[in-house]
């Protein structure tokens, strides 16, 4: 896909990575307060080539190859945001975000609160996360659970090109800091139609990607696409699974989840991040608090194991990740209740 101003009408089929790229491009065209900063985002055009050509088109003042230092990539973007710009800071891989933890949790998320609104921090931190790409311990992690405990932070994790465009636009518009997670395995493996023209998707709104009546499956990231495949397989066996794409991890959509669970009376939550203290724990607790007596089965969670990370060797990676077969089996088991 070439970098051109997005057409105003009709839809375009593109991959997730192209959706990120064109949305960033259009934001740079639309608003000169927007600038992109990170490691290798300039001449190299980002390690996934997301910003390729941006340096030539927008100049080094707006496409900034930063020194190799994640804490200050985020910290300097915070200062820019407090001073009225709309920076988009990139952390090259989510695994590298730990040096910036204080800047995100202690500074960005608390700027509005600690100054009682005297200062705000409208910025986006984009980062590719997730495994299944032979990324080993430090190019595969999921980080959402480390951050979703933090009030003041918004966390988005869309999984389709159309959702990426709408939510990345919403993130850039958002008057508060947004952590924008892009599952790197979906970058080139997921393709879809994207509406032309500018649009946003409301932050905090989940999306029913497949309607169903017997089981509710909540997921996001690459797992979402596996869950959809598993659900489609089960259709042939007469098991109807409703698949909800969470899209927004903080805030989360109580209404869509509860409406679905009240209909199916069975819930499975699937995510790549490890299970203990993960996103599924909060969803389970909410559903248990709000709809316990409407459930026909115990809530099921299918998630990563309690080990530090997936290994480099293929069997270690495969063992860590939830397979589509495991999802289908779990959905089928749950439907029997």
């Amino acid at each position, binding site marked *: 896909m070439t970098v051109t101003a997005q057409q105003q009408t009709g839809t375009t089929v593109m991959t997730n990575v192209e959706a990120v790229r064109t949305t960033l491009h259009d934001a740079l065209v639309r608003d000169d307060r927007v600038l992109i900063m990170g490691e290798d985002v300039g001449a190299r055009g980002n390690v996934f080539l997301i910003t390729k050509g941006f340096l030539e088109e927008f100049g080094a003042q707006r496409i900034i190859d930063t020194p190799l230092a994640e804490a200050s990539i985020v910290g300097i973007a915070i200062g820019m945001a*407090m*001073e009225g710009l709309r920076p988009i800071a990139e952390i090259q891989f989510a695994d590298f975000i730990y040096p910036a933890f204080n800047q995100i949790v202690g500074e960005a998320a608390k*700027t*509005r*609160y*600690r100054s*009682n609104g*005297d*200062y705000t921090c409208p910025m986006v931190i984009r980062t590719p996360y997730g495994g299944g790409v032979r990324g080993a311990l430090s190019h595969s992690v999921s980080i959402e659970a480390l951050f979703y405990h933090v009030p003041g932070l918004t966390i988005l994790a869309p999984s389709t090109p159309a959702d990426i465009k709408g939510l990345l636009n919403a993130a850039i518009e958002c008057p508060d800091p947004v952590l924008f997670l892009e599952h790197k395995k979906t970058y080139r493996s997921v393709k879809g139609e994207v509406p032309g023209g500018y649009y946003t998707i409301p932050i905090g709104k989940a999306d029913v990607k497949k309607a169903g009546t017997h089981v509710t499956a909540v997921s996001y990231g690459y797992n979402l696409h596996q869950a959809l495949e598993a659900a489609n397989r089960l259709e042939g066996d007469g098991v109807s699974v409703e698949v909800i794409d969470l899209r927004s991890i903080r805030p989360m959509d109580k209404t869509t989840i509860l409406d679905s669970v009240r209909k199916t009376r069975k819930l499975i939550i699937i995510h790549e991040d490890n299970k203990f203290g993960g996103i599924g724990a909060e969803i389970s607790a909410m559903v248990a608090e709000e709809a316990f007596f409407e459930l026909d089965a115990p809530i099921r969670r299918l998630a990563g194991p309690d080990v530090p990370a997936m290994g480099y060797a293929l069997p270690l990676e495969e063992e860590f990740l939830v397979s589509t077969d495991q999802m289908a089996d779990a959905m089928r088991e749950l439907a029997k209740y």
Partner: protein
Amino acid sequence: MPKTTVTRGRELDRAGLSDEQLIAMLRNMLLQRQLDNRGFQLNRQGKIPFALGSEGHEAVQAGAAMAFERGADVLVPYYRDLGLALGVGMTAFEILSSLFARVTDRSMGRQFPNHYTNHDLGVLSISSIIAGHCTHAVGVAAAFKYRGEAGRAVLCTTGEGATSQGEWHESVNYAAVHALPIVFLVENNEWAISTPQDMQMHVANVADKAPAYGLPGAVCDGFSPIATYVSVHEALERARSGGGPAIVEAKCYRFLSHSTDDDDRTYRSREIIEERRKLDPVPRFEALLIDAGVIDEARAKSLKQDVLRETNEATDAAEAQAYPTPESLYTNVVAGDYRPWQEFQ
């Protein structure tokens, strides 16, 4: 090397400062000391939970504040910058509202004392995490440069302990690479709570680190407001006119414990403090201005009465304010209503 202020009779090296500016610096220093004392008094009276003093930093901050250009520059202070806050326009009432954690405090009683915010005056909101704010200061300077706002600069302050932090290094490095309009003022009081300078670094001066970043580094006498003004003014002027960043190190001393919760008798002797008190910048600057004929004894006395009255009035006025309501705990988490669980129709 430090510029020294020569004090021989009326031969005051006033660095181009008018009588009015010199008196304003003295008044700032007197008010700092009065407010410092008030914070500790209120704490010992059980009226406030915490206070933190900047005794020994008065000259640095009065001098640096005089070099700050209101309406153009932005101050990104650290937590021991009472005099800078006052010098750029914050009031004793604001300071006391913060100490009492009353509704008239800008953060509405959320922030710890000495963690100022005042967007109107260009005082950036900070946290307590050392040197994290330096990156924000660089971001503000980057925004000035990006928008082509010549004539504006950022004054970012820290103690010497902050220069051990990675984020201080990252900030100075980034500012140097991009030639940003920012001055890193290090108020070297020799102590980071109980840890002395020689346990923080293996150089005699923080400014010695400047060449590693390709930046000018200056050391000035932080017990002299005029000397500090000269160094900070020169660095800010260069930054405002596109000459890039600098590190200015003002050598001062921390006369008090780190805070009302600290007891410095556990780690340093009384003798050394008494020795350093002999050079106390506040009476010394007062004597200098009298000696130079800028003020007379009567004016000096009236200035002191004036800041005491101002402090007393601000204390009474702030104490009379209401606490923030419990409901205010829930506001300004994010724009609009705070709901981690979204509900839709």
